[in-house]
């Protein structure tokens, strides 16, 4: 059981925790953190899988996919946070408005 399998299993359980965070939490900020953890877990699985061959260079294709995946998940998260912040501002304005 070479060491990279430990990283893959860790990635699997980070995915599980991220999914629990996303589905199990009610507060949207925690759900966004959960979605990010799910993404990091998937990338850890992908790269650990790329390192399965005991010797020689790792497989560059999953590395390229994870590079692309990181930028996609960060741009999604950024838009989510902008929406969440805007939502709170709207509620605060409504709060001030009809108090």
């Amino acid at each position, binding site marked *: 059981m070479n060491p990279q399998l430990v990283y893959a299993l860790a990635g699997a359980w980070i*995915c599980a925790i991220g*999914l629990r965070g*996303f589905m199990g939490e009610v507060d*949207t900020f925690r*759900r*966004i953190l959960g*979605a990010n953890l*799910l*993404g990091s877990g*998937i990338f850890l*699985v*992908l790269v650990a*899988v790329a390192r*399965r061959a005991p010797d020689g260079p790792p497989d560059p*294709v*999953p590395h390229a*996919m994870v590079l*692309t*995946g990181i930028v*996609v*998940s960060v*741009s*999604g*998260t950024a*838009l*989510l946070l902008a*929406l*969440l912040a*805007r*939502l709170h501002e*709207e509620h605060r304005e409504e709060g001030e408005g009809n108090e």
Partner: protein
Amino acid sequence: MTPPPFLVELPVAVPMVLAVVWLLLPRRFARFLARPGALTAAVAVLPCLHWVWRHGPIRQPLGGWMAPLGIDLYLDGLSAFLMLFHACAGAAISFSAAGYFPGSDAADRQRTDLFWPLFFLVWGGLNSLVLSLDLFNLFVTLELIGIGGVGLILIRGDAGATRAAMEYLLQALVGGMLFLLGAALMYSRTATMDLHLIAEMLTPDPVLNIGLALILAGLMVKAALFPMHFWLPPAHANAAAPVSAVLSGLVVTAAYVVALRLWYAGFHQLAPMMLPPILSVLGCLGIVWGGAMALRQDRLKRLLAYSTVSQMGYLFLVFALASEALPGQGWVWAGAVYMAVSHGLAKAGAFLAAGRLQTAYGSDRLSALAGAASTHPLAVMMLALSGLHLMGLPPGAGFAGKWILLMAAMAKDQWGIAAFILLGGLISAGYTVRAVEACLRPAESPIETAPVRAPMFPILILVLAPFVIGILLEEAGVLLSIGAPVDFSEFPMPGGLR
């Protein structure tokens, strides 16, 4: 006969070039790009259609690198048919949107102008989604369409648009990630992301089962199948009308087509025995739940959004009905495509008509639309006609699809599914009549209505297109059979396939 060099990528490249040119042009010229741009993007599909009809499918390796290493675009009958659907719906929506977003003051104009780059990028993404054969590429394209859809929802949406957009983006992101996790497992077993190559190596082994289950879970979230559909109604109901037309008509259908392509590329051998029954149960529940909720809605756009959930339930029935036992089960596959396309066209037309009524009457509440039939007869008629397609009455393509699914269900004596198909037709009749009846009621006092600047003919095109497909059903069947992964030996329609 080698295809001309740039044929397959044209429908993807043209909308994206338009988006880039829109951003580079100075503001005052950018607005003139909308209508001609939409027309060029629509026309860009015709050479592909012509080539596929004459010479059959093309497999285009992007960058010149062959499949396991590079990414391949695969132009076959299905992708040509769907790109034609995207072109027709996209052009109609663009002409309607040009009138819908006048944008009076500068700030509002600056934001509503953003509709065009987002819309063109989503259009390019949709064409790429239908052409691509690479699992990871499908993931990136689904994210492109998802984030583009969120941006579109925010353009002049109603009050609840921000919350609806956030929930939609959350679900789209997690759905995409589950899809990516499934694709990662597939890659780690077969060392390739290409659908056809994976299909060749498919030995039913548990790792690929888990991968397929995750991919289907991701797609079910994105296609809003029953248990994971809660994000759809608020998102589609609160967006501006052309945006709802894009989301409900094009984006949801595209996610379904990816599932269809996966299933028939050979992944159905992989599926564990109990997966198709689960999908059909979820589909039936989706039909009933979406229809029942639509019957209870008081707002027209929300009614149409729930109708989308119900119709998506229909489409997922095909996985249970398509098994090896059926001789020549290509026509079940074609039936599902007919239903998906006719629903997309009819729903886009319905949302645009609802948008006209909302701008005229200030709200889309059914109680407020009394007397609409007298002041806006054409819009109400369009609503009725699109309802007709949802019901699946002849001679539209919706009817052909539903009829084929019904016969397939009876041929496999799945009487439960057949019953739900008929029940679904009844329910969709129910909510269509409810919507149209609300407009037919005479208004107590004559209400002055705001002028509507969006043109009428795009809605006409959208609502009549399924009839055209219904009439040319055999040609459509021949087109779909080109490069199709299933055989079409016994096409049940009268006259069958030559």
